[in-house]
């Protein structure tokens, strides 16, 4: 091509600095806080109004107690490791499987019935089978969590793959891209909103399955502690576990959201 180029406006550096909206983030955080404080308030009122619930201070005291004798730390490490491993493996497996299902009819025909089937099976019902096949070590626990995360994520990824705008795929194909490249460089980014939904839902499932997983011969873990506390009707300990699980889940979800903002910032949206 010739060297002559077409003129276009240049970004102009100008006196006044860009006016950033001060506060969607701050507002959100503020509202979050209000909401959490309000929720704790409701809990407190319920507890005081004669329902059989421990009050927030009771739970706090119990939590400190469990923390100072090291139990909480031990449980937390054990559970976090299981959930992280299961969740990461599950999500990592879901993306290619979702792609295969969305892209190749045979894969879809073969996988889909079983994915659907296992999604409806309560994790509790799987325990004996998993135990027989994998023993009582860490493997079956991570597997149960893996399965929960995988199953939640794969549906979403599949939908993302089939929803990718055909023109983008065509654009990649005419630039010489083959299926593998299209998958990595077009389908994955284009369906990242779906994949991230899947991961967020999968993360929730992973945590929610923790108790079931730790029914399987665990020595420590938040779910194990909760189960044990349930047998002994120790509501304060149950609440400590619930709150810790909730906080960890929330924190991991925030990390995912952060990733999302970075990964889907290209979207034109509200």
């Amino acid at each position: 091509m010739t060297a002559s180029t077409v003129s276009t406006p240049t970004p102009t550096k100008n006196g006044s600095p860009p006016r950033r909206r001060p506060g969607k983030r701050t507002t959100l955080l503020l509202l979050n806080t209000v909401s959490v404080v309000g929720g704790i308030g409701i809990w407190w009122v319920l507890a005081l109004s004669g329902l059989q619930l421990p009050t927030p201070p009771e739970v706090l005291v119990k939590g400190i107690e469990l923390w100072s004798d090291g139990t909480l730390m031990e449980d937390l490490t054990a559970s976090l490791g299981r959930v992280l491993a299961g969740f990461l493996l599950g999500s990592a497996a879901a993306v290619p499987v979702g792609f295969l299902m969305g892209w190749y009819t045979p894969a879809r025909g073969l996988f889909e019935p079983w994915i659907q089937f296992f999604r409806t099976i309560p994790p509790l019902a799987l325990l004996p089978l998993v135990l027989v096949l994998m023993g009582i070590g860490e493997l079956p626990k991570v597997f149960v969590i893996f399965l929960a995360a995988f199953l939640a994520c794969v549906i979403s990824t599949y939908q993302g793959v089939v929803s990718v705008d055909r023109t983008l795929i065509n654009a990649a194909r005419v630039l010489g891209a083959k299926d593998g490249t299209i998958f990595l460089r077009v389908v994955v980014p284009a369906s990242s909103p779906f994949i991230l939904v899947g991961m967020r839902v999968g993360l929730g499932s992973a945590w929610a399955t923790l108790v079931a997983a730790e029914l399987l011969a665990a020595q420590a873990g938040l779910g194990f502690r909760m189960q044990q506390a349930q047998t002994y009707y120790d509501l304060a300990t149950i609440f400590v576990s619930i709150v810790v699980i909730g906080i960890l889940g929330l924190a991991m979800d925030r990390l995912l959201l952060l990733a999302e903002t970075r990964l889907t910032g290209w979207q034109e949206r509200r």
Partner: protein
Amino acid sequence: SSGGAAGEDGDTIEVTFGYIPDFNGTSLLAIAEDQGLWDKHGVDATTSSFTNGPLQIQALGTGDLDFGYIGPGAFWLPASGQAKLVAMNTLGRADRVVAQPGIESVEDLAGKTVAVPEGTSGDMILTLALEEAGMTKEDVELVPMEPPAIVAALSSGQVDAAGFWYPSLATVKEQVPDLVELADNTDFEETVAFPTAFVAGNDVVADDAEKVDAVLKVLREAIAYRAENMDETIELTADFNNLDVADVEADAANVEVLDLAELDKITEDGTVDTWLSGMNEYFVQAGTLDAPVDPAEYYTGDLFLKAGE
């Protein structure tokens, strides 16, 4: 609760009754229904199935249930004031400490993986057996598990031993015929019994004597019937729970059914209190109970006897 006049003069007493769908938990309810005992004593009973004792105790606390059934593992709950024991039921003979072939004694369990359903009679018998051998749970590799998981784990050799019970053990024996039984309930007859019992909400016992009396009358008549008609009882229970007669029969085979006279006697002569004290000691040791409690505070044996007058 729906007060009204008790007994035969027309008004009915509404009762909600929780149970666990096994022989111990259901047989009396099945009899009461079949023999029309509820109607006879003017009770309109609604029965609800539960999977464990603690959940029933909680429902008693919220007033969703009036009565419930618990196994020995949950006796610390009434002891800690969460409910009242209103009637003894049966004695468990089903609990065992079992081990894979090659393990000869409880002492051999040292360092082995031992599965246990926490807070159950299986847990109790294991603790007692270890204690008798001069060991504690620290000496073994204890793995808490759900009952179905224990069946799978024992059968497939994933664990070396377990504190567990029949009839589930029968399933394991199909896979591992020479499973070793290291201890059973009778080994501890002198110190600790494994009774099952019926419980009632604290409020019900305090405020609704009529209701408690009517229900106890029903239970007493059913107890009498059960002791004399085991075969029918097994059939009724199977029918009530939609189960195979053979399953229930296997279940009932490991139960020591007490007749009414016997129950009255052990209540009167303090045998029950002795059992309960023995169990309290166990619970205190296990850490579920803070301090021993006088059985009189939560076992209303007087009401049980009074209902028979």
